């Protein structure tokens, strides 16, 4: 049977599963006793086993099988979770990832077996600690009370607030065909008015139809018992519904069972129920995050995007007609059309947006490994993971960020002794933050390390022949920092495999600029440094200012524009052949767009010039143009492979009248 058609699905899903396995392993490392994490990893390993087995990937299947065994032993308490076990699980994870990568590249998982790992897992499974059971049992009892306390606590709270607590027992009709669906209707109906705080079996098991014809739920509700009963009674295929008020009737009895008297009897069921309850909570929280999704091929989205672009062009065209002929009623209609196209554009853009979490997810693990390797204690703080960026950015931004984070850990954070000497926390902090800012997304990588040593950078730059000694004396701090982005530059004393190959920051800058973004560095000695990446929110459609230069029209992205002003010709001064003007108490270099773009037949004699001030990071440049046409939404079209890297031009767009206007790449003038 041809499995190729399923490969894509397999890849997508296994990647997803591996990602969550990685996340949960990290969490488990921090909270080894948390059963819910164990259960989750177990579930993932199990799913992977099933999937790979079906696809005939035996190495993955056998490895996950052995992982399952170990996890099961951990779950039953015969193996204790320690760093050795976690490390082993991480190793397994790496191996699995390698297999999946192989599948992606060669359509097969490769021949390399995982016997070594399997042996390790097996031996781990055999050295079950004796006497463990007793300790574990005690621990379980403890946990059980704790979790019961949670329910107990919830019930108490509810009572305090004057809410009702009910135990609802449902028997399904034995003839019922879709038990889980029926149960789902019951739960759904109840959730309208109540909060379900506990269920036996767990919600997840109910959804998986892992129950007979009976289940019970504990609810908190404002409603009277009769109302709930009545609502449930309207659902068909229920054999019996029993609604017990826990506050008034049996709750006290139940509380007694919690007090260890009646423990043995209820222990097993309660234990399972409680761990499952945890699991349920997690699945619920997970569900609320992912919501209902459809997987769509990116090509189809691109196609949709192109259609929207066409629509916007036509819309602009309509606006032009309206301008020239002033037809009655046309105005309103075009405005309406504009509203629709704008929201359509927004909607399509949103479809393409992915939370940056997808990129951030892999960093905790990376930081863990790198910090071990370098023997530095690092805590990584992530924020703004739900910031959304375009899918095309997600695919590209990962590598630059890896470089920056590695740099921060390797160069930024000082070694232990230095930190102690400087009265700093032993543990270094690397912060990774993302947030939207107007029409762009900002990603910051910040460390609390030693900051960038300006003198060292200068020294190194001279050594590498990037600048001369004379130049170095003239340079301002800011300019020195920019040297870091120069190709062939690395300040690390020791060359490690983490950084210090001297290509890092150069590549980072190029990559980010190719995405239409900028990168800045803010650094303070002994306090740390911060790399600020600014990326445009959308890549395909932007707001731009249309200008006339000679007889030609050009578009300047609004993102890059700081302000527009007029400057008197006689205020322009020449400094070493460069034109500058004093503007708002600082010098502003003036460039003539006509000259930069070799526009023919431009009249140069004017009393004053229209100047568009564009910015890149902290720097400003004034661009002299002939006329302003106005602001417009433009669709960026690439000039194609044949004309890649034309200086000063970032792309082209089609105007309302069908002619082509070029988009000015203002960043290239700095």
């Amino acid at each position, binding site marked *: 049977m041809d499995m190729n058609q399923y490969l894509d699905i397999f890849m997508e899903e296994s990647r997803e599963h591996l990602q969550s396995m990685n996340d949960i392993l990290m969490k488990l490392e921090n909270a080894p006793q948390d059963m819910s994490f164990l259960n989750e990893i177990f579930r993932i390993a199990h799913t992977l086993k099933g999937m790979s087995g079906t696809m005939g990937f035996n190495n993955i299947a056998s490895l996950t099988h052995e992982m399952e065994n170990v996890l099961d032993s951990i779950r039953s308490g015969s193996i204790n979770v320690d760093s050795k076990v976690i490390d082993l699980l991480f190793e397994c994870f790496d191996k699995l990832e390698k297999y999946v990568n192989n599948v992606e590249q060669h359509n097969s998982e490769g021949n390399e077996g995982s016997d070594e790992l399997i042996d390790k897992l097996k031996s781990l499974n055999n050295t079950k600690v004796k006497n463990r059971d007793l300790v574990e049992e005690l621990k379980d009892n403890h946990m059980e009370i704790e979790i019961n306390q949670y329910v107990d606590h919830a019930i108490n709270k509810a009572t305090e607030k004057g809410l009702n607590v009910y135990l609802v027992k449902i028997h399904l009709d034995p003839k019922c065909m879709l038990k889980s669906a029926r149960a789902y209707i019951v739960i759904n109906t109840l959730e309208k008015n109540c909060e379900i705080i506990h269920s036996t079996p767990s919600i997840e098991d109910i959804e998986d139809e892992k129950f007979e014809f009976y289940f019970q739920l504990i609810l908190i509700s404002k409603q009277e018992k009769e109302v709930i009963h009545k609502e449930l009674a309207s659902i068909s295929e229920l054999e019996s519904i029993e609604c017990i008020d826990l506050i008034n009737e049996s709750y006290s009895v139940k509380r007694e069972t919690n007090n260890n008297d009646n423990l043995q009897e209820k222990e097993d069921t309660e234990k399972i129920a409680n761990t499952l309850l945890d699991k349920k909570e997690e699945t619920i929280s997970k569900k609320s995050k992912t919501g209902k999704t459809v997987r769509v091929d990116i090509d189809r989205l691109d196609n949709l995007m192109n259609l929207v672009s066409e629509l916007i062009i036509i819309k602009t065209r309509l606006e032009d007609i309206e301008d020239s002929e002033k037809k009655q009623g046309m105005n309103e209609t075009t405005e309406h059309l504009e509203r629709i196209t704008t929201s359509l554009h927004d909607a399509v853009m949103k479809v393409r947006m992915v939370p940056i979490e997808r990129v951030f997810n892999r960093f905790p693990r990376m930081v863990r490994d790198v910090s071990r390797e370098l023997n530095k204690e690092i805590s990584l703080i992530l924020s703004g993971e739900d910031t959304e960026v375009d899918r095309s950015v997600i695919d590209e931004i990962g590598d630059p960020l890896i470089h920056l984070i590695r740099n921060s850990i390797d160069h930024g954070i000082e070694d232990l002794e230095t930190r102690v000497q400087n009265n700093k926390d032993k543990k270094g902090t690397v912060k990774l933050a993302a947030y939207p800012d107007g029409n762009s997304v900002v990603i910051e990588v910040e460390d609390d390390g030693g900051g960038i040593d300006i003198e060292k950078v200068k020294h190194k730059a001279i050594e590498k022949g990037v600048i001369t000694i004379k130049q170095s004396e003239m340079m301002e701090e800011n300019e020195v920092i920019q040297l870091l982005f120069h190709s062939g530059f690395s300040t690390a004393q020791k060359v490690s495999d983490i950084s210090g190959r001297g290509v890092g920051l150069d590549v980072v800058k190029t990559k980010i600029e190719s995405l239409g973004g900028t990168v800045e560095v803010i650094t303070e000695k002994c306090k740390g440094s911060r790399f600020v990446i600014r990326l445009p929110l959308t890549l395909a459609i932007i707001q731009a200012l249309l200008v006339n230069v000679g007889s030609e029209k050009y578009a300047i992205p609004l993102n890059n524009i700081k302000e527009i002003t007029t400057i008197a010709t006689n205020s322009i001064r020449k400094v070493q052949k460069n034109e500058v003007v004093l503007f708002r108490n600082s010098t502003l270099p003036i460039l003539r767009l006509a000259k930069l773009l070799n526009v023919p037949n431009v009249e140069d004699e004017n009393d004053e010039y229209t100047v568009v001030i564009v910015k890149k990071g902290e720097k400003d440049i004034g661009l002299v143009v002939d006329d302003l046409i106005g602001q417009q939404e433009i669709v960026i079209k*690439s000039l194609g492979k044949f*004309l890649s890297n034309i200086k000063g031009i970032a792309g082209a767009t089609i105007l309302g009248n069908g002619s082509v206007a*070029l988009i000015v790449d203002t960043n290239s003038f700095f």
Partner: protein
Amino acid sequence: MSNDTSALNQYVIFKLQEEHYGISIKDVETIEKVSEITRLPNSPSYVQGVINLRGEVVPVIDLRKRFEMEIKENTEETRIIILNIEEMIIGIVVDSSSEVLTIPVDTIDNTFDLVNTLEDDYVKGIGKVEDRMIIILDMLKALNITAS
């Protein structure tokens, strides 16, 4: 199969400076009348600019400049041949173009046998149809595209 082999021998014929040139029909998408060409600054001199071809921005190359011939104003006859080579869409400006000819392989002379007066080796061969000589071009080389 027979269709394929005949297509291989079909050439789009165009005129440039009184000479007839042929491009394999596989490389040709469409032939367009000249529309507004937007000048592209800082590009190689033979790039005349870009045009809007049904919503796509397509670069246009002036073959006269590329072949270092004298520059001529566009006329009613001037055409842009839209090529699709190596998945790139490129237009070339020619004096006129109006026919597609089938040139059997055995009537094409290899230029290695002739004295090569053109500086680059973008001439694949010389085809003879009736009394006409047709210079068959290798567009990859003529446009300086390195095959990927």
